[in-house]
């Protein structure tokens, strides 16, 4: 078995890609589909596609967005005949938070609330929080206008704060 054979630079590039991005990609996939095993499948499929298309990748700065695009396509392919059961929150398989005990309750409540968000709110929010993308980049990813994305992100936060009874610092916006 060629375990010790020298790695090609292409292989090195791929390995760096996987080590650098699998965590974010898994989390994104997880919030997209709500299932651990499926999220892992999606991430693996994404990287295998990325491997085959590695030559198409040019700009270093665009790597994450490129991977996310592949993952979204994989997800869509898998679900083209099947809408996600966003109403079926029992099916959203929420892991236990690893936070310290005092944070744990709040964190699970927040997780559950994120799981309950409609996909149109959850997806841009997760792209922003995990991916660190700007509104413009998210708009690009989702094929939406920037204003629409801003509205969805705004509402996503309002809904979460509303569900958890957090003080909503945006409540005064309309009066300003």
């Amino acid at each position, binding site marked *: 078995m060629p375990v010790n054979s020298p790695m090609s630079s292409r292989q090195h590039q791929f390995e760096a890609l996987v080590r650098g991005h699998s965590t974010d990609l898994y989390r994104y996939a997880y919030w997209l589909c709500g299932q651990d095993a499926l999220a892992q499948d999606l991430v693996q499929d994404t990287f295998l596609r990325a491997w085959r298309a590695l030559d198409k990748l040019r700009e270093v700065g665009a790597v994450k967005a490129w991977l996310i695009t592949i993952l979204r396509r994989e997800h869509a392919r898998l679900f083209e005949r*099947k809408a996600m059961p966003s109403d079926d929150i029992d099916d959203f398989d929420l892991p236990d938070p690893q936070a310290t005990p005092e944070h744990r309750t709040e964190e699970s409540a*927040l997780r559950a609330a994120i799981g309950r968000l409609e996909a149109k709110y959850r997806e841009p929010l997760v792209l922003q929080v995990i991916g660190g993308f700007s509104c413009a980049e998210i708009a690009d990813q989702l094929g939406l206008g920037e204003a629409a994305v*801003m509205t969805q992100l705004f509402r996503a936060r309002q809904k979460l704060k509303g569900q958890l009874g957090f003080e909503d610092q945006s409540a005064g916006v309309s009066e300003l």
Partner: protein
Amino acid sequence: MNCLEFRRRLGSEPASTLDSFIAHRAECFGCAAAHSRADEFEARLRRAVSVAVPVNLADRILLAQTTELRQGLRKRRRGFSTLILAAAASIVVAVLALQRPSQQMPALAAMVDAHLHKHVVTASEAQSEVARQDVIDTFAQRGVSLAAVPDGVNFVHKCPAGPYKTVHMVMPQEGIPVSVVYVVDAPPQSRVEFSRDGTYGREVPMGKGTLVMLAASSNGFDSIENAWKSAMDAGVAQNREVKTLFAAKSLPGAASWDWRTRVAAP
């Protein structure tokens, strides 16, 4: 940027690096205070979104990639979940898996398998046969009407498998529990039999869904499959005499099956 614009941006993009956003925060006390409250919420949000990532995820992806390289698989099958199953990235087991790509679990079965690992039905839960009406009711809640119920369903529950809805059952066969999961709403799968690392499985298209069986032995699969096929057929052919229909079929091990019509069910 005025206060209104600032608050809108704050609610949608709190980490904004727009010059006008930063400038307004520096000169407006109220908005600066709102910004620090938003920061707190963002920190909570980041923690909540950062779900635990499976151990060795990157290693397992790299393993899958080198597998693909080595074998030049044209049609790769979705088998990640099965690798996880095999062992926590134990190289020995993984290498074995590489050498037997045909034994990977199909996607739907892998989702069912993942569910079975989370939802472990204990021996005491599956000790004795459940009431037929419970089986009929559970299927009905999933939108499937059964006219008959095979003998020997010792556990029944509505469960998910990946994004799909299922009826999760346990049907012991010759002392070996067989997990029998009817997936209601997945796209049609082709019939496939597989085994890996001591787990045997079969996926059978049935009615509008798919029946997935997983067990430590495949011995009971034929009779379970035939039994459910008949039960489904009977469900479709509602006006036919169910008992006659069953009598016309020769089931392997038919003697061990006790059929009752929906009407006759307790």
